[in-house]
């Protein structure tokens, strides 16, 4: 590969969106709708047609705020409670009020939601308190619908370019990003007035037990690049110690989605077939009860459906096996798993960052703005909690519209040519070696250490050892070797993963209390300490280039939550285990 040096092309745009999965396309669409004259570039590591978490479609909306079923106020309250009060309510409210208009917009574009005979949305109750789930049994065309709209609005799509670093102007505003082609290693620099990050979760942090590098849950292209780019550009990241940990199907390592089956009568059960949590909706408290059940010897834990009627089971099968993760049905087939006869064993996933299901991410306000002028973040990598697919769409839309008006007030900013040169060298360094360590082994080792030292229950002494191991791996980066563009792209991903591992450890050590159930269960600080830690924790790169922290006050609530209501998610354990019907 070192035979000919990869070229660098520089293009100009008004808005650059990075990540063409869910929130990214919607940001591009809403920016164009706000001002069709804007030049909007969508940079995607894979191919926008099938990229991101919703590659194959989606089973349903997990957080739809539909009039008649829930009000934005009720939703904001539920999400506040589910997150132990540490939320920026205005951002949750911005999502909640944008939720129904976005459903109607998607409906108009051709996304299919479940409706009853009268044509009304068929809402289901899954959350602890309110009704927010809207099934999408025919939800496989979401990407097609988005793609059609991108073409209609003439958004410029650049597939197979992985963004590696953000560009900033002399006065500290965002001014574009550097991308590397995953097949040729050629560079594409997009200068822009505004950048919207939509790079998804950090789904390659912990290591699955399967022996494969990639799990079957999160799209493995989402390896934490967005978090790493925001960090290196100087943006603040919020509450990263609030990990994502999910209940998955054991071995398959993909979604088990007990909460999808909940409205049909399915539930999570222990080895006696008994229900032990009142609500299958994912939260740190729910995961804590799940973990305790495994620890207590009452595990394994199962997804139980065998008590249901045949027609109900076939309906569940159609939803779970044809849409979002069709390989799930194939897994069951090989195992001889039949929902009718036997419950399916579940397990606890490895750790990651993801606000889609949990709460951490690049800090954004109610306009999806980060702490850097002109830089936005949306979807799983932005700090709005429990945002799921609809949240990625709504906040993508908010960011697109806000960025469109931001662009009107600014000229194309300058960028630092010296920085670009240095970044080229960093990117290409692994191609300058003929021998050394492969991206695979360096990634494997990093993620094995993540499992060994960062998983909850979090132990201070272990996390400190983890930090030492990550530092050693960082020193080994000067041996990292990539023999072709594909390996180079994995080598760059590894470096994002290592950044995220460092951030996970540092953030977890900073918050010296326990909060969010299992997500931040600190053995050395087992109590929740509202006096000191009822705040957001912000992680950022300081002037000297070190990882630093500060507390951010929680802005006054826009929806009041009474003290007794706040504890609702702490009472998820079934009082006396009830026998299976």
């Amino acid at each position, binding site marked *: 590969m070192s035979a000919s040096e990869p070229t660098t092309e520089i293009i100009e745009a008004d808005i650059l969106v990075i990540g063409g999965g869910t929130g990214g396309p919607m940001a591009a669409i809403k920016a164009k709708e706000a001002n069709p004259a804007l030049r909007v570039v969508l940079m995607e590591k894979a191919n926008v047609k099938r990229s991101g978490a919703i590659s194959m479609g989606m089973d349903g909306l997990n957080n739809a705020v539909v009039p008649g079923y829930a009000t934005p106020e009720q939703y904001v309250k539920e999400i506040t409670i589910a997150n132990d009060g540490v939320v920026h309510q205005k951002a949750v409210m911005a999502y909640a009020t944008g939720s129904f208009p976005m459903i109607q917009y998607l409906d108009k574009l051709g996304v299919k939601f479940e409706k009853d005979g009268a044509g009304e949305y068929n809402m289901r109750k899954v959350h602890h308190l309110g009704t927010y789930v809207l099934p999408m049994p025919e939800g496989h065309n979401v990407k097609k619908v988005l793609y059609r709209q991108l073409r209609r609005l003439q958004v410029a799509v650049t597939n197979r370019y992985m963004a590696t670093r953000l560009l900033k102007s002399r006065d500290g505003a965002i001014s574009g990003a550097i991308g590397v082609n995953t097949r040729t290693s050629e560079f594409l620099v997009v200068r822009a007035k505004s950048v919207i990050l939509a790079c998804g979760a950090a789904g390659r942090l912990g290591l699955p037990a399967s022996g*494969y590098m990639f799990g079957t849950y999160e799209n493995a292209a989402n390896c934490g690049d967005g978090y790493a780019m925001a960090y290196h550009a100087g943006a603040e990241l919020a509450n990263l110690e609030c990990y994502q940990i999910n209940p998955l199907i054991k071995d398959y390592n993909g979604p088990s989605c007990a909460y999808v089956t909940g409205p049909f009568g399915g539930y999570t059960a222990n080895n006696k077939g008994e229900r032990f949590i009142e609500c299958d909706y994912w939260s740190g408290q729910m995961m804590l009860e799940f973990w305790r059940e495994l620890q207590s010897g009452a595990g394994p834990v199962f997804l139980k459906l065998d008590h249901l009627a045949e027609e109900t089971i076939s309906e569940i099968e159609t939803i779970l096996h044809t849409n979002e993760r069709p390989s799930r049905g194939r897994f069951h087939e090989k195992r001889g798993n039949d929902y009718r006869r036997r419950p399916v064993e579940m397990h606890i996933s490895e750790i990651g960052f993801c606000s889609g299901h949990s709460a951490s991410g690049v800090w954004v306000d109610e306009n999806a703005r980060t702490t850097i002028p002109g830089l936005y973040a949306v979807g799983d990598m932005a700090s709005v909690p429990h945002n799921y697919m609809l949240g990625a769409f709504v906040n993508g839309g908010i960011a697109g519209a806000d960025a469109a008006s931001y662009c009107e007030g600014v000229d194309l900013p300058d960028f630092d040519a010296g920085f670009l040169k240095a970044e080229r060298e960093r990117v290409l360094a692994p191609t300058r070696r003929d021998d050394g360590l492969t991206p695979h082994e360096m990634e494997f080792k990093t993620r094995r250490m993540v499992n060994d030292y960062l998983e909850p229950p979090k132990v201070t002494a272990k996390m400190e050892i983890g930090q030492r191991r990550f530092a050693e791996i960082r020193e080994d980066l000067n041996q990292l070797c990539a023999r072709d563009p594909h390996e180079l792209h994995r080598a760059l991903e590894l470096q994002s993963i290592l950044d995220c591992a460092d951030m996970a450890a540092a953030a977890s050590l900073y918050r010296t209390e326990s909060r969010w159930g299992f997500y931040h269960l600190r053995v050395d600080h087992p109590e929740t300490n509202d006096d000191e830690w009822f705040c957001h924790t912000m992680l950022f790169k300081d002037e000297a280039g070190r990882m630093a922290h500060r507390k951010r006050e929680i802005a006054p609530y826009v929806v009041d939550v009474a003290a007794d209501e706040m504890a609702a998610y702490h009472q998820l354990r079934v009082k006396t285990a009830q026998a299976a019907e």
Partner: protein
Amino acid sequence: MPIITESKSAAVVIDDAKCIAEKGCTVCVEVCPLDILAIDEGRKKAYMKYDECWYCMPCEADCPTGAVKVNIPYLLR
């Protein structure tokens, strides 16, 4: 340190008789979110080049001739 390679069984299988890559088709290669499929330049057929699959299945869903089959690999079974 010199680099060695190891062999593994491919979970994504392409039926050569059905694959029309020789006519210019690259659909499965284009849609794969992890870029792990490729066209074998000698045989002019698609194949799984890297063992880095997410088991998401657009390759199978979008192949115009139904040549792709995504199997659950041994270690996940």
